[in-house]
């Protein structure tokens, strides 16, 4: 197996949508008048990003060109405008989560009974989140899980980009820094062995070990650690996908994709690839149904060979 760093230091830098002053204006507007005026203001700002910030247009095009192959010229321009506007609305909703009262939000959770059932099991749960819809809304409403939840996320990065994310919710979660000792794997494995929950992003591989999978017609590197943790500990694997259904309104779906198989008894590589394949199938189904809800503004299909993993044949134990 190739040995590589688990550092997050080599993460690409997606373009920054907004700055401190801009966020402050939006926050004031949300606080004073609610989200609708903020959406309206956003509609006037989107053309600025499209026309003057070519980096923003380029970063959106990586995904859009894969999702809508053959799209070009004016149609691609308009599609990009709509996509960036949808993303902006999700950012406004995220900010509103930290500003407005919880009663103003409508969150429909599908698969909640699955989470309740799994949280009664002794086995741990790997919760696979995705940059889709408003994943913060999904995490903030995980009170159906009667287990301790650890987030293997780069909190500094989240705070830097979206003020007020998870506001008032942080005490409920324990954050494991992915840039910490051995990528947080000791902590994550212990948590799963203790029957707790570890949430990991399934579609963000920065600095993590990856395996390539066919996604929207081309191979893309996906982080392998969530599946490796399931294969080693026998935890359940649950995919969380959120959809923005309207102003301050979301739908969250929880789907258990680990099934009844005993993944600990399979060779690790086969288990990891099979589980990852199930997640990628869910993701493809999602972007097919909600093409403007998956937000990864960088070349998702670019593989950094430094992080590509050739696994030793780790048999089940």
């Amino acid at each position, binding site marked *: 197996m190739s040995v590589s760093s688990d550092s997050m230091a080599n993460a690409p830098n997606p373009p920054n949508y907004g700055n401190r002053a801009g966020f402050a204006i939006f926050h004031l507007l949300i606080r004073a008048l609610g989200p609708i005026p903020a959406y309206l203001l956003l509609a006037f700002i989107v053309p600025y990003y499209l026309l003057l910030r070519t980096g923003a247009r380029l970063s959106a095009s990586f995904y859009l060109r894969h999702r809508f192959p053959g799209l070009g010229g004016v149609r691609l321009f308009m599609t990009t405008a709509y996509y960036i506007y949808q993303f902006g609305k999700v950012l406004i909703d995220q900010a509103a989560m930290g500003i407005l009262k919880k009663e103003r939000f409508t969150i429909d959770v599908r698969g909640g009974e699955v989470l309740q059932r799994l949280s009664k099991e002794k086995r741990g749960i790997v919760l696979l989140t995705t940059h889709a819809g408003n994943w913060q809304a999904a995490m903030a409403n995980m009170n159906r899980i009667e287990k301790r939840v650890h987030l293997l996320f780069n909190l500094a990065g989240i705070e830097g980009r979206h003020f007020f994310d998870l506001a008032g919710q942080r005490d409920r979660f324990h954050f494991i820094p992915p840039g910490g000792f051995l990528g947080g794997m000791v902590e994550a494995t212990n948590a799963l062995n*203790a029957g707790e929950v570890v949430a990991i992003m399934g579609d963000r591989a920065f600095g993590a070990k990856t395996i390539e999978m066919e996604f929207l017609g081309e191979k893309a590197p996906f982080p392998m650690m969530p599946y490796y943790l399931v294969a080693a500990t026998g935890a359940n694997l649950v995919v969380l996908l959120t959809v923005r259904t309207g102003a301050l309104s979301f739908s969250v779906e929880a789907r258990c994709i680990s099934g009844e198989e005993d993944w600990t008894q399979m060779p690790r590589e086969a288990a990891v690839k099979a589980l990852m394949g199930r997640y990628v199938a869910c993701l493809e189904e999602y972007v097919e149904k909600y093409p403007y809800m998956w937000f990864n503004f960088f070349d998702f299909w670019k593989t950094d060979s430094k992080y590509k993993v050739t696994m030793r044949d780790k048999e089940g134990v």
Partner: protein
Amino acid sequence: MSLENELKSLIIAELKLVDIKAEDINDDQPLFGEGLGLDSLDAVELVVLLQRHYKIETKDLEQSKEVFASVRSLANYIRAQQDRK
């Protein structure tokens, strides 16, 4: 067999290390990075190994760095935990 040698054999067997024998591993050799060359995937296997074979957890992050430093530190930690039980 000493606990250190038992651990070396377990690490080789469960982490599927090839072309390496227990006697090739020094008790104080670093397990990760420059030493034995283990990585974060191996860390997952090591944690599972400790739990399955010795019923031991390492929950404290700062403690983990010391515990997983070498075979000797792992063995010392296991002994300390077993004495506590």
